[in-house]
């Protein structure tokens, strides 16, 4: 066992560094061409890299001050792109993957709906086959990047006559198609414009935009939500992109608030939890490298990381006292490089209630962990086996109609 990181003079590291020296301001197209965008994918897209090399590349891009491709265009790089590798047609791979990895075409995920959040299988948007195309009608919600995206990965219902999870399909939709309307959602943070509503009013989607087969939608969606790239070594708040507990402690020390005994013990508690989160991520990574069956730490890490981040931001905010109730950028000194909007402690705090909601609520996540890892009885879903079109039509009312 060895908890040391690949050393500074590790040959793989120096090679990446050399390349970055020769290409000091690389474009995302150059990074993709080199294989640094998805190092863990097979060639020609990636390098077939093991997680350690992946970590070295992430490290070195960060050191060179380059915004990671997986932050710039997360949907194809982290979640959906690999579905095209496995289930896409050669034409789809050719047409979509290259511009996606070069970050020339931004993608978004069109999953959640007003009545289908954690229970995304209950979604109501329909895609009706008509000749060589589908006609899409419905509404999506909580879509990040919809306003910037060229391509949307859409889950829609193609067959309402079968139970809810069976009748879903996925499509790659041009976001500038006629009939699509995008509206920003004003969230409680008051400044982000992170999320959007997307309306589909009889939008025509060519049949060759179907990903996999009709009815594959649920399977694909679940895979995409789980192919979570290991958030290497930084257990930051807000899904990894905000400040971490280390930065909390550094900030409190720098601001002279760490001496306050009402803050100090709580801060160290969070520091400990943050360190263990970091170690857990590295353990999953290491188990994969050693081809060991990975334990439950992945699911567990997710379950702990979201509320952990909320508490980090909460303590930073409370350390300000009443002064923190004014919109400000001075919550704590930020000792590390800017990393986008969530480097701002104040904004990150007021935004943080979202992280135990997005990608499934905390309660649903705990159900999943207790069922999948501990084998406890599954929650009952009375609609699970009912044909979707019959849900809500009670046997009594059907009897009356007959």
């Amino acid at each position: 066992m060895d908890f040391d990181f690949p050393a500074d003079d590790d040959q793989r590291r120096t090679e990446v560094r050399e390349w970055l020296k020769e290409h000091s301001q690389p474009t995302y197209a150059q990074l993709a061409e080199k294989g640094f965008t998805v190092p863990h994918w097979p060639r020609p897209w990636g390098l077939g890299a093991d997680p350690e090399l992946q970590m070295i590349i992430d490290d070195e891009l960060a050191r060179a001050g380059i915004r990671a491709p997986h932050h710039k265009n997360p949907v194809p790089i982290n979640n959906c792109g690999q579905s095209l590798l496995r289930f896409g047609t050669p034409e789809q791979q050719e047409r979509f993957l290259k511009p996606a990895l070069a970050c020339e075409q931004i993608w978004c995920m069109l999953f959640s709906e007003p009545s289908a959040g954690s229970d995304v299988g209950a979604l109501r948007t329909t895609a009706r086959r008509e000749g060589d195309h589908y006609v899409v009608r419905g509404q999506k919600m909580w879509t990040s990047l919809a306003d910037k995206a060229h391509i949307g990965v859409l889950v829609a219902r193609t067959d309402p006559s079968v139970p809810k999870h069976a009748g879903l399909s996925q499509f790659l939709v041009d976001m500038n198609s006629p009939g699509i309307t995008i509206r920003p959602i004003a969230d409680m943070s008051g400044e982000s414009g992170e999320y959007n509503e997307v309306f589909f009013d009889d939008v025509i989607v060519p049949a060759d935009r179907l990903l996999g087969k009709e009815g594959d939608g649920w399977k694909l969606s679940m895979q995409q939500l789980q192919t979570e790239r290991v958030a290497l070594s930084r257990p930051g708040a807000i899904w990894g992109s905000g400040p971490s507990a280390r930065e909390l402690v550094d900030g409190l020390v720098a601001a002279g608030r760490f001496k306050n005994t009402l803050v100090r013990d709580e801060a160290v508690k969070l520091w400990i939890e943050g360190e263990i989160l970091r170690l857990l991520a590295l353990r999953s990574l290491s188990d994969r490298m050693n081809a060991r069956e990975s334990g439950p730490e992945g699911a567990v890490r997710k379950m702990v990381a979201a509320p952990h981040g909320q508490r980090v931001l909460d303590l930073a905010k409370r350390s300000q006292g009443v002064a923190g109730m004014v919109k400000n950028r001075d919550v704590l000194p930020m000792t590390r490089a800017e990393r986008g909007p969530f480097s701002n402690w104040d904004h990150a705090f007021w935004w943080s209630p979202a992280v135990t909601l997005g990608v499934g609520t905390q309660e649903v996540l705990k159900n999943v962990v207790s069922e999948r890892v501990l084998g406890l009885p599954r929650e009952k879903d009375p609609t699970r086996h009912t044909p979707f079109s019959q849900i809500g039509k009670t046997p009594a009312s059907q009897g009356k109609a007959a």
Partner: protein
Amino acid sequence: MNFSLSEDHIMLRDTTADFLRDQVDLAPLLVPGSDAHQAPYETLWSQICELGWPAMIVPPEHGGLGMTEIDVSIVLRECGRTLAPSPFLGTLAGTWALLIGGSQAQQSRWLPQVAESGLRMALATAPANGDAGATTADVVASAQDDSGDTYRLSGTAHYVVDAPGARLLVVAAMLEGQKRLFLVKGDQEAVHLEWLDWRDITRQVAHVHCHEAKGELMPVDCEAAWPALRNRLHLALAAESAGGLQAVLEDTTNYVKERVAFGRPIGAYQAIKHGLADMLAQTEFTATAVLYAAWAQSQDDRTATLAAAMAQAYASEAYRDATHRSIQMFGAIGFTWEMKNHLYFKRARANAELLGSAAEHRELIARVLEATPH
């Protein structure tokens, strides 16, 4: 970089687990009215000695196996999982003290006996307030004119784990205003044990009263030896707690799948499911912190101190919390003496107090972080 257990580690873990599953019998302790005298220390210890555990941390030049803290933590985890009643922890503590603070001659004399014949040891450093790391002791040493390193010790060392049956004690005593460590034979008349009615009856704990007991001075003073010793003790308790958490998680999960109330297994209710999901997280977190702390012992002092304090602070609170929760999930049956729940609950409470509170460990971390920003 490699955070996974090696094949050798996995084999050690599995053979230890098999051995303890077959040999640990807590039945005598689950009889109402039992106390630590019924803990089957002797039988288990002779088997443990056959397996060579006391030799684990003894260097090869003294007849030992020279194994690492990672190996030791793997074995301790399994001991904690089964609550194996034995003087292993006390012997480890005494051996570590001898390794860190003893002279070459002292090591050469005693370590082979530990390694080869399972000499039982104990570490006795706490004054009446129970603070094993305190700068004072309630034992006082006085020099004998003609006897070189031999001193006379009088006073009491408190809350000494595995003191009953220990043939060699490492006792802290005040000498010229400094807390020093002495090797004290347990079988001398001048050493008197006061068994404690310790709540964790899987463990034998006593106050050690010395009345002009003979003690041999160790060269490294207590203050200098303590950080390295403390780090190992933190690791040891945290490793036990990690195993205990695993056992409590498994027992409780199995129980809630079987126990039916209101027509369903109680494990179908979210109040129970979510509580167990939290307990699973605590178990995984503790295991990870312990692995890291074990590895960190081989690194620099700062890393070792942070990692060990982190493991013990986290593990002790998680174990305490989980054992309480487990009793609640079992319901009233979990409150009875015949069930094992209370043994784990009491072990968790005791492990969380033996080296000071979690808040004190966090204060230790706070000072390191303040002094050297990362």
